[in-house]
């Protein structure tokens, strides 16, 4: 998945903050994957305090804390280079969530976005309204966020 590779490369070079709106879905996927990974670590962990994941968990993974939590989590994640394991998890999560988009146009919009196309460009490629692309991108984010506890 070349778009994913270049996203990871950008992340590793610490350019994450410079990436723009077009990477919104990647950012969401990273957050979803990190939350999932943290939940798995939590389940296995018997220690109550002290681990890095615990600190991330307490500060940023609470489900009720909304966008600030996501922002804080991303800030922590991009402070370090993604491990190959984490990159593989993001790729796997991406495959899984793309597979859950049953509507063909919805999946195409997600793929185009992850390839780096703008809303305007996707609308032109698919021959639909820009508003439709914006609305459906929103729906994709909602579907993906909703599905992760």
């Amino acid at each position, binding site marked *: 998945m070349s778009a994913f590779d270049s996203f990871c490369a950008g992340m590793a070079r610490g350019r994450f903050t410079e*990436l*723009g*709106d*077009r990477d*919104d879905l990647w*950012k*969401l996927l990273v*957050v979803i994957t990190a939350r999932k990974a943290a939940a798995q670590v939590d389940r296995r962990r018997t220690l109550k305090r002290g681990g890095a994941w615990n600190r991330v968990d307490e500060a940023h993974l609470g489900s009720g804390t*909304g*966008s*600030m939590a*996501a*922002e804080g989590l*991303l*800030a922590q994640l991009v402070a370090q280079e993604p491990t190959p394991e984490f990159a593989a998890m993001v790729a796997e999560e991406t495959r899984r969530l793309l597979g859950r988009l049953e509507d063909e146009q919805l999946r195409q919009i997600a793929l185009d976005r992850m390839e780096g196309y*703008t*809303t*305007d*460009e996707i609308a*032109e*490629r698919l*021959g*639909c*309204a*820009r*508003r*439709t692309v*914006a*609305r*459906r*991108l*929103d*729906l994709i*984010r*909602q*579907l993906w*966020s*909703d599905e992760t506890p």
Partner: protein
Amino acid sequence: MTRHDHGLASNGENPSRPDGPATWAGLVDPAAKRPRAPLPQAILIDRACARFEDAWRLGQALRIETILDEFGGDRTLLLAELLALELELRQSAGERPTIGSYHERFPDQGDLVERAFGDFTRFEAGRIASIGEPSILARGLEPTRRFGDYELLGELARGAMGVVYRAR
């Protein structure tokens, strides 16, 4: 000239600052900025809008009013989406929708109509400014068309990455 990436004004992205820093808060969780229907509602609204756009592209006269009448969910949120969609489709078709006609069609939804027109006009102005061309809605306010030191004489071509002008 490149076209900047930003969504519609009511989508939580800021059309007046297309070059501004992207905030993760809004991108990761757009609900932070935009009132959003719960997922089952959002799916219904999306389907209703898709039906409207499909009919429009097939040249069928399916009116917003008809879709609203048949809709069992939150009609306010649906109307906001449909208004934004219809304004864009009509403008793309070279029409100039007037706010008065929408006030007549939706007399009980004055605020919603105002907001839809306001958002659309602002968004188009921001979007078009970013590719150097005044929008149809803003053109009346801007008698000379300039880009930097150039006077734009006409449009030569238009593509995914921008618009090519003849200029002097």
